[in-house]
């Protein structure tokens, strides 16, 4: 089966679903952050696939922005993680549920 847009979108959706699964299921905050990066990467793949499909490079520009913003968000998320770890000695998200009570 020759590879076309459908295969790229299928792969992008699959990786996105894996990222959502990791985000929802895992309790280690670091792995949650990694799942967020997975989701963003899957979306980048979809952007590039559609850019190739339409022949316009706007998808590349948006992927560029996604990469940059994701790097900034990872940095801030990790510093939040460090702060939380300093106070609580835990990175388990189930121990950080004070808004719930």
């Amino acid at each position, binding site marked *: 089966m*020759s*590879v*076309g*847009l459908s*295969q*790229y*979108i*299928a*792969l992008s*959706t*699959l*990786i996105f*679903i*894996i*990222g959502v*699964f*990791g985000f*929802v299921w895992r*309790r*280690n905050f*670091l*792995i949650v*952050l*990694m799942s967020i*990066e*997975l989701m963003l*990467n899957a979306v*980048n*793949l979809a952007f*590039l696939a559609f*850019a*190739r*499909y*339409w*022949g*316009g*490079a*706007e998808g*590349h*520009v948006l*992927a*560029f*922005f996604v*990469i*940059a*913003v*994701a*790097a*900034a*968000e*990872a*940095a*801030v998320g*990790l510093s*939040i*993680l*460090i*702060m939380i770890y300093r106070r609580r000695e835990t*990175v*388990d998200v189930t121990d950080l549920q004070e808004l719930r009570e």
Partner: protein
Amino acid sequence: MNDALFYIFAVIAAAGAVFTVTRKSPLAAALSLAVSMIGLAGLFLLLQGYLVFVLQILVYAGAVVVLIIFVIMLLNLRAEAVEHLNLSWRKAIPGVVLGGALLVILLSAVRGLPQFPAEVDAEFGTVEGVGQLLFSRFAFPFEVLSLVLLVAIVGAVVLARKGGDEE
């Protein structure tokens, strides 16, 4: 040849993703994430995204994942200390069903379309080609992005320094 490469890179990316979310040790998960990102970079190359390919490896696999590994090292996180991975198959069923539904919906939306009909010139996806767009139509978001990065840098430094808790 391109088709074979697509499947090779697709398997690397998907397997890396699966390993990322299923490893107990955060270090193993970070390394799997790097592998997955490199697989995705190969796919970007197949889609003629030359600039994004380089950025993916430099920035994502080479900086974000390294930053995550630094944090793992700094906090000295061990594998067993954190969580017990248990997932009964019954609990996973609604997620699998919804994920499958999403896949079916998106695939049915693109299935009818022809493969990759557009003819692209030699500059598509290269630094020159994307740069042309970036500095003309997307100049304002580009400048705002530099501001976003500045805010992130300052914020990360402010958040992570010691003595910030005492206020």
